């Protein structure tokens, strides 16, 4: 049994002993890969609608939306991870995340389902190239034929190269 990584332990105060309770992950696809984020960080899933552009923001920041009166930035992870295709149609979805006491919308190719992974099913992350920096990957979830890249979404979203927070607020 591997101990949970400190970042998960930190961000999940309510979770009981991780070894007994399987972790729940929301899985989504970006291109050919399937990713998983801690379900407790997910606030809701909604369709992609009108986004107001923010001047001089990086291209992967689509802009801001009105989420019931709160101004919420929207990041297109497909652009962030340099995927070839990033289309916006009626099937494009946004995952609204609640990370580091902030709300962020994330555009992905599709949301698949919610999966439970026990600690044995989570393998340490291998070194590999690609869009996502390994330091944001907490592990690889293996479930039958599927392989899930588990992301520490909180760390990713508060990282400096996401440019989502003022640098003073980045820890």
């Amino acid at each position, binding site marked *: 049994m591997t101990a949970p990584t400190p970042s998960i332990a930190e961000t999940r105060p309510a979770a009981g002993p991780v070894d007994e309770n399987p972790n729940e992950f929301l899985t989504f696809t970006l291109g050919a890969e399937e990713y998983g984020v801690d379900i407790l960080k997910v606030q809701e899933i909604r369709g992609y609608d*009108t986004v*107001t*552009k*923010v*001047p*001089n*923001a990086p291209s992967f920041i689509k*802009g*801001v*939306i*009105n989420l*019931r*009166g*709160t*101004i*919420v*930035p929207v990041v297109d992870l497909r652009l962030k991870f340099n995927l070839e295709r990033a289309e916006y149609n009626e099937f494009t979805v946004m995952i609204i995340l609640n990370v580091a006491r*902030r*709300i*962020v919308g994330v555009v992905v190719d599709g949301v698949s389902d919610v999966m439970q992974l026990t600690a044995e099913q989570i393998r340490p992350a291998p070194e590999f190239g690609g869009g996502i920096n390994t330091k944001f990957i907490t592990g690889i979830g293996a479930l039958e034929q599927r392989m899930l890249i588990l992301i520490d979404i909180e760390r990713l979203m508060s990282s400096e190269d996401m*440019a*989502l*927070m*003022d640098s003073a*607020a980045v820890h």
Partner: protein
Amino acid sequence: MSNIDLSRFHRAFFDESLEGLDAMEAALLRLDVGQADAETINLIFRSAHSIKGGAGTFGFTAVAGFTHLLETLLERVRSGQRQVSQADVDLLLRSVDVTRAMLRAADGGDAADVDAVARLGAELEQALEMKPAAVAPVAVASAAAGWKIRFLPKSDIFASGNDPLRILRELDRLGQARIACDSQALPALADAAPETCYLSWTVELRGDCDEGAVRDVFAWVEDECELEILPLPSAEEEGAKDAQPPAAGAVAHPNPSPEGRGAEKPKLKVVEGGKEPTQERRSGDAGSIRVGTEKIDALINLVGELVITQAMLQQIAGNLDPVQNEKLLQGLSLLDRNTRMLQEAVMATRMLPVDAVFSRFPRMVRDLSTKLGKQIRLETVGEGTELDKGVIERIADPLTHLVRNSLDHGLENAGQRIAAGKDPTGTITLRAAHQGGHIVIEVADDGRGLDRERILAKAAERGIPVPANPVDADVWQLIFAPGFSTAEQVTDVSGRGVGMDVVKKNVQALSGQIEISTRPGQGTCVTIRLPLTLAILDGMSVRVGDDIFIVPLNCVVESLQPQAGQVRTLSAGARVVKVRNEYLPLAPLHELFRIRTDAPEPEAGILVLLESEGRKVAAQVDELVGQQQVVIKSLEANYRRVGGISGATILGDGRVALILDVAELVRGYARAAAA
């Protein structure tokens, strides 16, 4: 009982105590020495008393000990044993400061100055030992030879933490008490519950104390007992006793005024359960509750949402057939009205009277005028004018600075005033009023006025740029320049040169404006114009490409369509617009914000002239869309600061629009021009 966590009551204690101190301070300043009004004295006493009581309950012994001294002194004044002197008022005011510091320290702030506390404590003790001045017969009419008190505690009085013995001991301290205990209700020992009070007492208190003092002993238990306080007939009254029947409804007033007391002294005062005085005592804040600002802000946000939703429905309803949907449309227009009324009502909850800041000035003026040796009177007008709590909090410092400036620089001393043929007492007037969606606050003095030559000389000395042939208004604006101070002497009151520029910056940060008018020898008036609330902004919506931006209306000077030749290109692509002999930098918003537009040329768009901090730029937009009030939303709450943008808002159709940061825009061009 011991498992009650008192700390959760601390907040309320601190808040109430600080409020009590404010009330005390105000009352002390109001107090007319030599003719002390019993009502005011009572108010001061009660504040001290409840702070002492609270501090004792919550275990802040230092505060309790100090306020006890304070209370003792006040009690002497109240009972007429001591005539209040100017020195006493000074001492009490300083005590208020020390108590406030101690409370802050107890609340986890900076540690209180132990020496100051000890010193003042010693002074208070000394003042207490001094032979009391001649009893003022007017101030307090000692009523009866004493009081007959019947005290029937409720059986669960112990549950509230009150100890009848303590009360009896305190009564004993007021005079000669003959206490009789009624133990009839006491059951056999085996049946007695240890936490139940079975006893009641009758006390004959002989001595020179008034009813208020007796009642205060019971202040903590009023709701937990039956209490009867009857005056003991004095020898000469005995005979007349039967002449006047007990006046029905002559309910004991906790603080009868001295006149009233003499005139309609009731022979019998029955107050059941002490309910009546409690209510009257709290009449000042009756009907108000403490609510956290975050709750109110949440409410304001929700109502903002409602307004947007309502606007959306209204928009959709515009396309409906008015005949077929008559009922629906009627309902919608009703909803419209109710929503707006709700919004106004909710906004009003954040509004506070401007008195919240004005009330700090009498003390300041009093202290500073003594220090500066000037005679100064402070007048306030329109203190009931309400404005947003956020504005109130942030306007306090600029106002303090302005008042200090008037005190120090504006007003002359008595000698100079007499020489100038003026009233030796100078006047500072603070005035607040609503003026068409704005609140206007004026700080006016009848002092010497601004000196044009001295300001110009100073500006030259400090190297502050002065426009050629400056008109008066230009000269007055110079005092807002950073590093400007005209005081001949730098005093510790004001005049360190970090003054007016900060004031101006603070006012502008509140999207307000500041103006000066002055007449030599007659005085100066500084006018601050502020929006009513920080949450709403009067905006002009402009279109750039496909995007809508909101420009704060208070920054818009005018808008115009440039003619060919009006825009000139300077070196390095910088362009200027000539508007009535003024060359203004051109700020094409589509370039600044990298937005694709079909009309990149200035001649094809509209120029909006924006002004901030005395500088102007011409912002180029594609189209003026309209004017509207917008609710300001934070962009930083979930995102980050964006250059040139001060915030965001939600338009009627639910879309987000960004609000232009005019001050930053203008500053950027000023820097570019300077470079």
